[in-house]
């Protein structure tokens, strides 16, 4: 593949992102609207883009799709459908130059662009260059979604070539590729003798970021003599101080700022709170055990965490109860949902952390449902990068006076 065909590096992508929407809208009118189909017959034979540059311009406009905050319910999407039709008939060697636009895409735009490009890929058949696809897949500067899409197209055409690329992806920033790389190693290790398999599984455990994969690896290792602390591997915050219970009858407490919350952004006064360390396999803090089994109540929990670097990280919380989270006194997320499932990393939101010590405050609300499955009053929380690598540590627990 020629260098000019590789699509933008991250810095170029940023420049593309900054181009004015007015220019983009004007360009879209020029490149897409002339081809708006008046009938199904027109849709079947759209006018192909006249140049690769025009194809890329269509791809970028599709990627913007319905813009963030734009009410899609008032948008005529026929022009987007017509643009996708035009992209669907580009020559095979124009497809990959259009692909980087995925990195610019709004949620709707990603799907508009994908549907146009995948139709083009279907038409291209074997005309799509395997070598060029492999270069996109292995270029870690590109967005994960771009690389994963290219990987799928490559696998459809040359599965052995695609799978060979996984050998270098055990630490890949693209989560799906990393998962496939771990999976390949796990499958290969199944035929190895036990010691070699254990070594390989330990490497995979360090690389894996998906919870189900980590559980499987840890399960095998535990059965073969390695004790794996799953909560530590996943990086759950396990040491907390827990408040007394406050009233949450009829859900009134969720929106009410009780003293621990009312003092924010100043840290809550936690003297007299109960120190709780989770021994749960998944780092859960069980408030029924820490306080008492109660209904229609809420409690706060505070943890001190240490971050190696300042910056943005993902706060990931799971709870069957309504929860709200603050980091260093600033709100991060709030979900007023009761007993509608529970999962690790159920709610994820970005927060800004300082290098060094930080304070995380959780508000966890129990309702008054009486069904047995609504008894749980608990949460689990971890702080990760975008791939799921744990970032927070906790200072050693001070000895009791």
């Amino acid at each position, binding site marked *: 593949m020629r260098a000019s065909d590789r699509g933008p590096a991250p810095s170029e992508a940023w420049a593309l992102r900054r181009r004015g929407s007015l220019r983009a809208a004007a360009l879209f009118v020029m490149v897409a609207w002339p081809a708006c189909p008046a009938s199904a017959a027109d849709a079947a034979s759209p006018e192909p883009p006249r140049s690769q540059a025009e194809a890329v311009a269509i791809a970028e406009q599709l990627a913007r799709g319905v813009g963030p905050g734009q009410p899609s319910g008032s948008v*005529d*999407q026929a022009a987007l459908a017509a643009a996708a039709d035009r992209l669907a008939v580009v020559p095979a060697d124009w497809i990959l130059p259009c692909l980087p636009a995925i990195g610019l895409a709004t949620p*709707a735009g990603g799907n508009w662009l994908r549907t146009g490009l995948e139709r083009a890929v279907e038409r291209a058949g074997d005309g799509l260059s395997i070598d060029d696809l492999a270069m996109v897949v292995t270029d870690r500067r590109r967005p994960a979604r771009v690389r994963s899409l290219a990987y799928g197209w490559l696998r459809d055409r040359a599965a052995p070539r695609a799978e060979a690329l996984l050998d270098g992806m055990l630490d890949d920033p693209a989560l799906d590729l990393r998962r496939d790389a771990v999976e390949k190693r796990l499958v290969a290790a199944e035929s190895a003798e036990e010691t070699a398999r254990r070594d390989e599984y330990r490497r995979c455990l360090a690389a894996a970021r998906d919870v189900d*994969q980590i559980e499987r690896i840890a399960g095998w290792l535990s059965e073969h003599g390695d004790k794996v602390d799953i909560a530590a591997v996943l990086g759950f915050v396990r040491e907390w101080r827990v408040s007394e219970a406050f009233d949450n009858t009829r859900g009134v407490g969720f929106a009410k700022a009780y003293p621990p919350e009312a003092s924010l952004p100043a840290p809550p006064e936690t003297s007299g709170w109960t120190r709780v360390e989770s021994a749960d396999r998944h780092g859960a803090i069980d408030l029924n055990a820490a306080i008492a089994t109660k209904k229609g109540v809420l409690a706060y929990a505070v943890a001190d965490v240490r971050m190696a670097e300042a910056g943005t990280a993902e706060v990931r919380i799971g709870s069957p109860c309504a929860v709200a989270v603050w980091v260093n006194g600033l709100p991060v997320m709030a*979900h*007023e*949902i009761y007993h509608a499932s529970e999962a690790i990393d159920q709610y994820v939101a970005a927060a800004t952390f300082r290098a060094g010590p930080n304070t995380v405050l959780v508000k966890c609300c129990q309702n008054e449902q009486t069904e047995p499955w609504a008894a749980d009053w608990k949460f689990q929380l971890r702080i990760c990068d975008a791939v799921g690598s744990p970032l927070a540590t906790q200072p050693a627990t001070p000895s009791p006076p």
Partner: protein
Amino acid sequence: MRATRRLPLLAAAMLWSATAAAADWPEFLGPGGCGVADGQAIRTRWSETEGIAWKVDLPGRAASSPIIVGDLVVVTASSGPRQDQLHIVALDRATGRTVWHRRFWATGRTLVHPTSAVAAGTPASDGERIVALFSSCDLFAVDLAGRLLWQRNLAVEHPRSGNDVGMGSSPRIVDGTVVVQIDCQGDAFTLGVDAASGIDRWIVPREKLASWTSPLGLSLPGHGACVLLQGQQGLDLRRAGDGVQVWSWQGACAGIPVAARSGSMVLVPGDGLVAVVPTAADAAPAWRSSKLSCGIASPLAWGDSIACINRAGVLGIGAAADGQLRGQVRLAGSFWASPILVGTTIVAVNKEGKTFLVSAAGEPKIVAENELPGTFTATPAVADGSLYLRSETALWKVAAP
């Protein structure tokens, strides 16, 4: 038992909607959402090796039913470690060959309970286009050639919509309006979208309570095409075109099985089975039966009869006019798929893959049992004497007799 003196007049005046060609099965529970295939007969014996026209492995998991539109069998699925890859697949009805396959990224939440799936809602077609709603609250419309016409990323527009048990409601196309019911603890609403353009026609808020029921289309003299919305606290009847409320009824309703229509009544699962007459000024039910009750599967109404499968796997058949139980037969297993009627035979598929054929004439009697491997939560489809059975990951076409 309450008398139903006013019913004959209303029954004579009331018309229920059914828009698709007779050979199609275009939506959840078939034409008009009735679950009835008149004048058809299916074979009574099949297995993995006998009586199967074709079997296709699908690209992901689903609890949604197949639909039949012209020469196409259309299914939905989700795949990937996070189940965030959404699929709409059209298969050739005669051969099972893939005609087209569209893939999208989910833009909303994809956590679901293991018994459900991100692709839980059954797609719907008006013969020109296919609409599919996923648990991520993504709504896509494609034409019969697989061309994306429009999309609505409802979780982007309403960030607190959806729930982590999984959204299971199927969309309906009623008189040119796509109606979707987003019942959850967060942003709950019903949306009417122009089927051709994807542009809002109307939106109304709903109680912040989860449910997994689907809108039911019906026509009422003086009101035209309407849609019945069932929530846990009652029924809400609205005009499909503009969302104006025509009637409402307060009462306990089930959160999963969907009401069935019978003459002028709707038979509503809830505390047993309750018959109510839409538009009646009197809020009192026409009748209420504790002997006819539904578990997960929706009731089936035809002629003067009503059938329900309860949580114990007992199929009961009663009189639609007064709810009197006529007979029962014990099936086996748990039933997530709703029963359908083909000719005079009730087809009931349990979760373990066993299909019971039950004579609906006179005392209910099992006339055949046939088993296929897999987990079956999807309601079957039928067209031209062929039965389409979908497991979580595969689709079988049972050949016509």
